[in-house]
């Protein structure tokens, strides 16, 4: 329940356009054609989501103890 409310916090959704923009621009600096750019952007976005998600999970677990 606490996790669900934390996930639905409106501030968290501000990260979505940022992840999109950062991964697309980063992908575009590595490739020239649209298809590889999109593939690279997808991998970058996934990596960022997993990385930030794991930090979020750790902080959320810590907040349960404190």
């Amino acid at each position: 329940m606490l996790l669900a409310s934390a996930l639905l916090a409106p501030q968290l959704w501000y990260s979505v356009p940022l992840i999109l923009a950062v991964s697309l621009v980063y992908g575009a600096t590595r490739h020239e054609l649209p298809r590889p750019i999109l593939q690279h952007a997808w991998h970058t976005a996934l990596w960022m989501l997993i990385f930030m998600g794991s930090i979020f999970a750790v902080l959320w677990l810590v907040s349960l103890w404190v």
Partner: protein
Amino acid sequence: MARFSPVGTMLYLAIRQPCLPLTTAAMSSPPPPPAEPLLKIDLRNPPLAALLAWVWPGAGHIYQRRYAKAILYMVCILGTYFFGLALGEGKVVYASWNEVDKRWQFPLQLGVGLPTMPAVVQSMVVRRGGEPLFGGLMAPPRRYRDKQDKWVDELADWHKGLNIRFELGTLYTMIAGLLNVLAIWDAYGGPVITEPGKERGPPEDKEKDDKAK
């Protein structure tokens, strides 16, 4: 006699599979094709393209006739910048460096180029004692006494009024500036195309070299 559960057996197989010896057919198969065909990109005049890319995100790529990337950079970078600016109601991009407020974020926002120039103009106008232009858009916050002789701290008012949107707007505009640095580099030097196996030659060649030695 040891007994394994079906899940354990599947996990064992899944882990073991990559360690299976390669068959002759697998070893003699041709190497995978590169991620994208080799392209010849005409960067025209790279310093000029980099300058244009800084002045307006995507402009350097238009100059180089790389239109798809120009649109991508323009949409992503300017979209991020103007969304951040809108979140902060036009107050999150300003140039100020005094004892009270050292706006270290502005040099990062400056990466977006021309869209941040009103902040530079406003800073110069306010420093000379003039009234901010354009209805105070991108003007640095001031601290003054009003008609009732009360201190007015604009920066504190902005933080109070905008709350988290001030920080979010600042973050968005900063990231837009940093992203444009990547775009400028791309306009100057072209993309860093990553092709698998480009750094190393095929294993057969290495074996031949070793035998020759």
